Structure formats: C-alpha cells, structure tokens
C-alpha cells in the first residue's frame, strides 16, 4: 500500500496506534475501560486517561470475552474459564483441560460458558456449575436483558432456556443448518443467529414465526442493534445491511437500509454508536467508516485500510474513545469527538 498518498483521518491523527502482534479476537466494556482479548492469550485494558495495562491470561488464543460484575470473563484454547479484574488479578473459574472454552456470557453475578456441547452456569449460591446439555457443539450463547433467559445456538437451531422456579426449562427454535452467534433483540422479542450459509435467521419468540435474512456475498460474522426502531445491523456485504425490526412483522417482506457504502470489500465487524442513530462498519481490508442510519447517509472515515480484516470495534463506556482492532493485532485507540 502506498501510504504517502493516504490522507489520515482525524481519528488516526489524534489517536494512538499500538502494534501488539497478536490478532484481536474480542473486546468488551468494563468500568471505564475497554478490555481486549488477543490471539496470544493476553488481555489489554485501554483507558481514556492511562496507558494500557497488559495481563497474561491464557496460553493460546482467547475465544470469547464478556464483562461481569467484578471483572471480564474469558474462555480460551487452553481450556480455562477465567475472571480478570481491571487491576490485573486473574481467577480461574474452571479448567476444562484439552477442551476449548468457546463462548462466555454474564449477567450480574451469574457467569456462564460453553465447552463442547454443554453450557455451564455459575450463580451466586453454589460453586458447582449447573450444566445444560445440547445435541451438538455450541455456536453461541446470549443472555436476555433481565437475566431470565439464555439462548444457545447449535446445529439445527436455538434452545431457549427460561429460569422458572429455580429450574432451567428449555424450548426449541428449530431451523435446519449450523447456527453461529446468537442474540436477543433489545426488546427481548426476537432471537437472531448467524448461519454457516451466507445468511442470518430470526424467530419471533412469542409464536416461533421464523424468517431468513439472506443475499449476503460472504458469511455474516458480526451483528449489532442500533437506533430506536431498532435496526439489526449486519456485516457480510460491501455495505452495512440494516434490517428494520419495528412493527408486528419486523423485517419480513421489507427492504433493509444499506449504509457505510464506501468500502471496496465486505464488512467484517459492525458496532453501533450508543445514543446516536449511527453505525461503525469495519471491512476486510481494515477500513472503518461511521455512517448514519438513514436512506441517504453521510459516511465519515475513521480508519484507512490497514491490509488486515477489522475484527473488533468498541466504544468506551463514557463514549469518549473508539477502539479498532484487526486480525494482525493493530489497535487504534482514539478520541471520538473533536477536543
């Protein structure tokens, strides 16, 4: 790439770039920091006012990261499920040996992870995990806004677990195929999964009515929710594809909004800007754009192409900073607003 001809964005001018050498595998907000998980098993905390803090946590890549009451929880290829505080204390919650810990999630003091076909739940009361079994290896887990329901995706659909009288009861949302990430809509009415095929699937939980969102040129690796409607914002195409989830039928039979159209390559990561009708889209060549949720959006360049796929975009909890991470380990940490 000919860097001399590239005009730096305001974010690249004002921000700091870190070359960590390890792929960024995930990131999450915790207290006033953004915690980033890496392919070498380390975690780094980025603060608006301090230098980043590195914690050596796992051996092998971190596969999943989430924030809990008192630290981030991580699952790794070393089979360990860890909790790491913002002052670098590492606590092992469980060790699965040679089995990877693929997914983690938390709600207040409840922490859970998946390894193979099982979900393991630790709540306040006891130290022994509650185990929820599934028919195949788990692709993704999600907890709803109240901590009462857990969605688990695997081959053949989603199992929705509900906590009723201290027991987890399951109901099945079936759709043929291999399901990856899973999420609840912000109002808790829909379930969404990414699929092995180049599409997403969604169910209205009330009546299990389901529909596919397809037409993507590549696998959908990332989705998020944005705006008041809300829109389901998705990667996988040359633009950020935003499906309207308002009304009774959601996006059924409606066209999505296509925004952030300046990228030459497929989007690999999307993130919303909290409180605004705006979306960040990161692309396979490392470019990142900020775009408005509208029919005729204006795009703002956040990061020029780096040559490596954008694997995470996170906003600091106080909305002051943006973090962009890529698959080669470059981090851009930049103030979000003009100073």
């Amino acid at each position, binding site marked *: 790439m000919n860097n001399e001809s590239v005009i730096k964005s305001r974010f690249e001018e004002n921000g700091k770039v870190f070359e960590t050498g390890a*792929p960024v595998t995930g990131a999450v907000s915790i207290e006033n920091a953004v915690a980033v998980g890496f392919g070498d098993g380390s975690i780094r905390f980025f603060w608006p006012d301090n230098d980043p803090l590195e914690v050596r946590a796992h051996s092998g*890549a971190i596969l999943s990261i989430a924030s809990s009451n008192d630290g981030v929880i991580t699952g790794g290829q070393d089979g360990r499920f860890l909790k790491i505080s913002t002052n670098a204390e590492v606590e092992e919650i469980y060790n699965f040996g040679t089995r990877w810990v693929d997914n983690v999630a938390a709600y207040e003091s409840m922490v859970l992870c998946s390894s193979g076909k099982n979900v393991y739940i630790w709540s306040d009361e006891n130290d022994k995990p509650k185990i929820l079994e599934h028919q*195949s290896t788990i692709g993704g887990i999600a907890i709803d806004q109240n901590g009462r329901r857990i969605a688990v995706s695997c*081959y053949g659909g989603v199992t929705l677990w509900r906590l009723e009288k201290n027991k987890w009861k399951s109901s099945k949302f079936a759709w*043929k*195929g291999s399901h990856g990430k899973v999420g609840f809509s912000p109002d808790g009415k829909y379930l969404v999964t990414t699929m*092995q095929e180049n599409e997403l699937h969604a169910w209205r939980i009330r009546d299990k009515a389901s529909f596919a969102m397809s037409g993507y040129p590549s*696998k959908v690796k990332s989705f998020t929710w944005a705006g008041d409607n809300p829109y389901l914002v998705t990667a996988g195409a040359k633009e950020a594809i935003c499906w309207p989830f308002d009304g009774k039928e959601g996006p059924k039979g409606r066209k999505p909004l296509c925004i952030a159209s300046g990228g030459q390559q497929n989007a690999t990561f999307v993130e919303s800007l909290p409180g605004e009708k705006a979306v960040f889209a990161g692309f396979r060549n490392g470019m990142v754009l900020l775009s408005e949720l509208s029919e005729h959006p204006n795009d703002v360049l956040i990061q020029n192409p780096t040559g490596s796929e954008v694997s995470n975009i996170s906003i600091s909890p106080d909305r002051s900073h943006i973090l962009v991470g890529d698959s080669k380990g470059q981090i851009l940490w930049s103030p979000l607003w003009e100073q």
Partner: protein
Amino acid sequence: MENSSSQVPVTVLTGFLGAGKTTLLNRILTEQHGRRYAVIVNEFGEQGIDNDLVVDADEEVFEMNNGCICCTVRGDLIRILGGLMKRADQLDAIIVETTGLADPAPVAQTFFVDQDVADRTKLDAIVTVADAVHLSSQLGEHHEAEEQIAFADVVLLNKIDLVDQSQITGVKDRIRKINPYTKIIETNRCAAPLDEVLGLNAFSLDRVLEVEPDFLDSDHDHEHDDDVTSVSFVSDTPLDLEKFEKWFGNLLQTHGQNILRSKGILDFKNEKDRYVFQGVHMLMDASPMGPWPEKSIRNSRVVFIGRKLETMNLKEGFESCKSD
C-alpha cells in the same frame, strides 16, 4: 487477497483402528524438529500423542443448506480451523486424525465449501494408513474402508512384514482398482520418508497435471454393485466446451452422490489453455492452467472414482463431448 503461502497446509490422516495412524502421527511430530504443528484428534482416538497443541474434536458432520444432498461438511473443523487461525503463533501445518470409520468426503468438502477455511488453510493431502494383513477383508465389509482408499492421495500399506509378497501384490491390486491415482508406500511401523507424506499439495490443480495415474482397463469385473471402482477415458479429438459443461454439470447433479472423486485435464477446441478440474462428489474446482507445453501430447483425460459407475453412461457421455 490471500495467497497460497499464507495458507496453512492441512494433512488428513485416515485409516482403520489399529492400522498405525498414531504411530505415523508421532513419527511426524518427533522427526520434524523445529516445526510447529496443531493436531486435531477425535475423542475416541488412541492416546499418547506427543505434541503440545492437541485439540479435541467431535466429528460433527452436517449438511449444507445448498440443495445438494451429498454436500456434507465437518462443522467442528470449520470452528477449530477458524480458532487456530486466531492464534498469534504461526503454525507450520495442521494434522487432522479421523476415527477409523470416518468417511473422508465431508473433511475434503469443508475446504471447498467454507470460504474462511479456504482463505486461511489448504487441504494438503489425504493420507490413509492401511493394515496389509486386514485391508482386504475390511474392504469387503466396510464402505468406509473403500472410501478411505478412494480418497487417499497416499496409502501407507503398513505391517508388510506380516504378509508375503503374493499377499502384498494382491492387496495393492485391490487398492489400484479403487484408486489408480493413489501413491502406495509399503512400510513397517509407518517408516515412510516424511516428504512423501507431508507437503504434497495434492489438492491443487497443478498437482493434477503432475500425477499420472496407472490407467487400468476400465471393463473389469467386480463382486458387488456397491464396490468402489474407477474408470478413465482419453480423447485425442478436442472437446467442445459447451457440450462438456452441459454433460458434466448434469452428471454431477444426478450422480454426484456416487462419484467420490473426479479429475481431468481437458483440451477444448479453439482454446489455447489446458483446463484442469478436480471434484469431490458434487463440488468441483476447475480452472484454465496456462497453455499446453510445447512437447506434450494435447489430449483430454478424465478419471472417475465411485460406485455404480457403470450406470452413468460415462463413456458415451464423454464421447458425446467431442467437437465436430
């Protein structure tokens, strides 16, 4: 964006239980000093693998929703290969050990179907370890044994110290009848030169051009309808591109389930380039591979390995593609 040098080679080890897969695996891991391997094993596998990066996998085979019934892939491989590509340390190679009764097709198809897998890794070769004592009876009893031979780029015919020369000849004939393309290496305790097992690039289209199969008479008898056999055809008359595409597309649609592997080098009328293809069931990789070398014979050669090949009118179909 990716080029072949950034793709990590993946070697698939198949073979029945007790044939010597773990022996071969440990030889690779101990003799290739300074190289970094990830080994993907199944939970029923033999113990005692001497490597610091061993990943447990369930052999999860699932169908793709692409309307193609034989298009099965290994879901766990997609997940694990994706996970390994997130590591900071560079791997020199990945070895996948399958269970004794595994069908290699879903493993091979995973590399055709999943874009992320295809971008970051490449299927180097399928290596089948066969027990010289027991292979003949296993071939009669288990479909999987035939499939493992049919898909093999290399067969290590192991434990030859336990059989006499006539038995070796017999079992080799049996292997060649199923798969004329495979390279057979006779071994004891899997003591094959490792450069004949690793780094073969057997699934690249270039490689189709380099390996000449032992062409056999295709009209041989066989004992059961379900036997895996192979047939090959040669045409000195250039083929018609349109006719070939129509015939071949239709053939894979209708009989893809019974065609395990297909390969060919094609000479089309009015085309200066050689066309090369290779397929696994209904999935196919094809491309022009540059002009014909000056001194080479310009003709079209195709090979099919599969079941019930005699029901597909392959000879007539191929003949009908000749240009007028």
